[in-house]
């Protein structure tokens, strides 16, 4: 096996890895700006320079030659090499900043160069706190600059497109954004214009950087040059908590982090997941976080004198159960939603088939062909349609499919609709019917919610734990990123916690607690209805529901929350029966 000597260690390697990638994989830190694992390697930032040499082998014996002191002789390249672009060869000797004063000096002075015209406005920069330039300067940079002249000034606060704002002075011209538009999104909307100390990334004149994936450049920008028009100046990175989750904007289900501050969702950022979205997500998905804060339903409501009034959970569940008991089972329809988790869907299915005894169970397909593209976006705008099919959200024997329900409501074959998490009236899926009564579990104030006899407040995916299966059959789990009313963020397992969550008290000026909504996950609401209807079930939590699911559904056999992990697992959706 070929060997490489890095500092004082020997590593064996296979193939033709680059020094930087190899070091990062083996936990050896090297500083870099322009390198990105998903992009080509331009080697233009010069921050990852290392000393590279080759062992001198004796021609006769093939053994390394030794000098007079008995040390191996190394023939070094005359200059430092960019480790991101240098391939490892057998017998290569690499000296990083751990063992080479020259490399340390190169790193320090390169940073001094990079910072020459940098405005050093970290206190007002959105990138501060998650800025590689800031971090690497702290670790490897000089303690001060010798440059005492007027800095070069460049355009600031330029809207490159509708969602990305450029500050050219902060740019270090690593070209990550340009390479992203060339290699990943392929819109080729960005280029580096001008030259020398005046250059910065920009669009062609009169063009807008309106790439549907443009905001990924904000993530990969290693400085604060590209910032989000939406998120600018809204929160500091260190005040927010991040929780791994998924985007529910379409059936791709991109892995994301949900960032919250004072329990309010502030942004989504993509989370690396090679099974689903690699490092990227679309702008529309990224901005869909707003839905988690806006127009939210807070607490259950019941209808009284033609209006909805807030009610207790006990009262509303009792009213709902009373309504459900008063209608014959074949006149009740249960509408689940492909935006609910597997756990929710499973308990809803049990409620419909086992307790209510109705055959009318279905979900709505929300398709938007204009949303689909060749990269990540899919026409199916629901995150868990595959999950609905997996759990069996479909009409039982003699059950009506969902397309026939509006007609059935009109002619009296259906009287009562129990809606979980969908909005058939507001999304235009159904005409607004004159007849029928509605029990609705909804996370938002929707058209359907406003017609309910009993309205139950449902969690969004950001407040619950549950599993989603995307169109490719990858099962991922979401974790609660936002606490519901009555919860303490620090006590919710798996929830990301920020310093504010841990240490702020109601006596602090920066205390905020207005973004808590009184809502419950779908499985818990379905279980509550089952109890009221006299069929006590007692799941201790979503994990217990999933344990039962894993028994019941062949594709999930043997899975557990621990096995799903952060990355998820690709399911075999059509398992062969064991012979």
């Amino acid at each position, binding site marked *: 096996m070929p060997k490489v000597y890095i500092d004082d260690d020997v590593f064996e390697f296979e193939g033709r890895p680059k020094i930087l990638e190899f070091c990062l994989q083996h936990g050896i830190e090297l500083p870099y700006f322009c390198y990105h694992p998903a992009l080509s390697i331009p080697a233009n930032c010069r921050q990852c320079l290392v000393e590279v040499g080759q062992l001198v082998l004796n021609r006769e014996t093939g053994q390394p030659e030794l000098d007079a002191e008995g040390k191996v002789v190394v023939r070094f390249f005359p200059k430092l090499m960019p480790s991101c672009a240098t391939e490892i060869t057998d017998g290569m000797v690499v000296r990083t900043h751990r063992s080479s004063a020259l490399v340390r000096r190169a790193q320090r002075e390169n940073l001094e160069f990079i910072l020459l015209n940098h405005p050093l406005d970290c206190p007002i920069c959105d990138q501060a706190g998650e800025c590689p330039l800031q971090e690497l300067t702290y670790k490897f940079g000089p303690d001060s600059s010798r440059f005492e002249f007027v800095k070069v000034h460049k355009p600031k606060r330029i809207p490159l497109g509708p969602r990305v704002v450029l500050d050219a002075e902060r740019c270090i011209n690593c070209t990550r954004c340009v390479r992203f538009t060339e290699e990943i999104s392929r819109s080729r909307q960005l280029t580096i214009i*001008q*030259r020398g100390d005046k250059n910065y990334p920009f669009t062609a004149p009169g063009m807008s950087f309106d790439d549907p994936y443009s905001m990924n450049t904000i993530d990969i920008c290693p400085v604060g040059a590209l910032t989000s028009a939406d998120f600018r100046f809204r929160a500091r990175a260190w005040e927010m908590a991040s929780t791994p989750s998924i985007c529910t904007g379409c059936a791709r289900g991109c892995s994301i982090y949900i960032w919250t501050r004072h329990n309010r969702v502030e942004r989504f950022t993509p989370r690396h997941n090679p099974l689903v979205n690699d490092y990227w997500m679309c702008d529309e998905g990224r901005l869909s976080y707003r839905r988690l804060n806006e127009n939210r339903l807070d607490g259950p409501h019941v209808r009284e004198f033609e209006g909805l009034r807030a009610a207790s959970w006990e009262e509303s569940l009792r009213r709902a159960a009373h309504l459900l008991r008063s209608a014959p089972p074949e006149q009740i329809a249960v509408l689940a939603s492909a935006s609910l988790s597997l756990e929710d869907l499973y308990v809803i299915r049990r409620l419909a088939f086992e307790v209510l005894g109705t055959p009318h169970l279905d979900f709505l397909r929300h398709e938007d062909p204009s949303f689909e593209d060749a990269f990540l976006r899919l026409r199916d705008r629901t995150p868990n349609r595959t999950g609905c099919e997996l759990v069996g959200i479909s009409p039982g024997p003699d059950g009506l499919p969902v397309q026939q329900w509006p007609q059935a409501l009109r002619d009296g074959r259906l009287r009562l609709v129990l809606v979980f998490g969908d909005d058939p009236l507001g999304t235009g899926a159904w005409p607004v019917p004159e007849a029928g009564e509605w029990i609705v579990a909804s996370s938002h104030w929707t058209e359907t919610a406003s017609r309910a006899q009993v309205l139950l407040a449902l969690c969004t995916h950001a407040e619950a734990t549950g599993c989603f299966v995307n169109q490719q059959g990858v099962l991922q789990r979401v974790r609660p990123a936002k606490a519901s009313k009555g919860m303490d963020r620090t006590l919710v397992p798996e929830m990301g916690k920020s310093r504010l969550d841990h240490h702020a008290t109601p006596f602090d000026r920066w205390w905020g607690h207005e973004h808590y909504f009184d809502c419950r996950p779908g499985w818990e609401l379905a279980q509550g209805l089952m109890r009221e209807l006299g069929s006590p079930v007692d799941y201790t939590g979503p994990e217990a529901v999933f344990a039962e699911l894993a028994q019941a559904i062949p594709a999930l056999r043997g899975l557990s929350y621990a096995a799903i992990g952060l990355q998820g697992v690709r399911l075999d959706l059509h398992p062969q029966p064991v012979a």
Partner: protein
Amino acid sequence: MEPEYAFTAEELARIAEIRRRYPTARAALMPVLWMAQEKFGWLSREVIELVAQTLSLNPAEVYGVATFYTMYHTQACGRYVLDLCTCLSCQVLGAEDLLRHLEERLGVRDGQTTPDGLFTVRHTECLGACGSGPVLMINNRRYVHRLSQERLDQLIEELRQGRMPEFASIPLPERPWEQEASSDS
């Protein structure tokens, strides 16, 4: 507007000929940009888009190249672009004063164009004619050597009358030390 920005069939044939000399469209970009600038005066947004379309490149890419080189004009410029060298040799010979003289005479600042659209004044880096400085270049092409304020005034008058100065061949200065060295041997 559309027909104003187009290449003629003859020009397209020339572009195709240029294109054949290079392995990629990107490599053929510079001569084509040059052609476009000769034709349209400067590389406006429409011209950039025309070049990009002609070579099947992206406008951003074309714009990046156009802004990289100072001899491509991405701003509207005058009939005569005067590039005055202010690099070391010319500077020592008074180029800075000449630049100020030019600015005052034409009533514009460095980098600006006169209101009548006739002159653009720019300072530039070394034009490679240090032996005959101070030097000025007209429209990326014609050099005017050994400038003085009088020569500049005269030049501006000539240009106003539409007369481009003649090409002047500047012989290399004599190098007596070389002759001495050769006579020694």
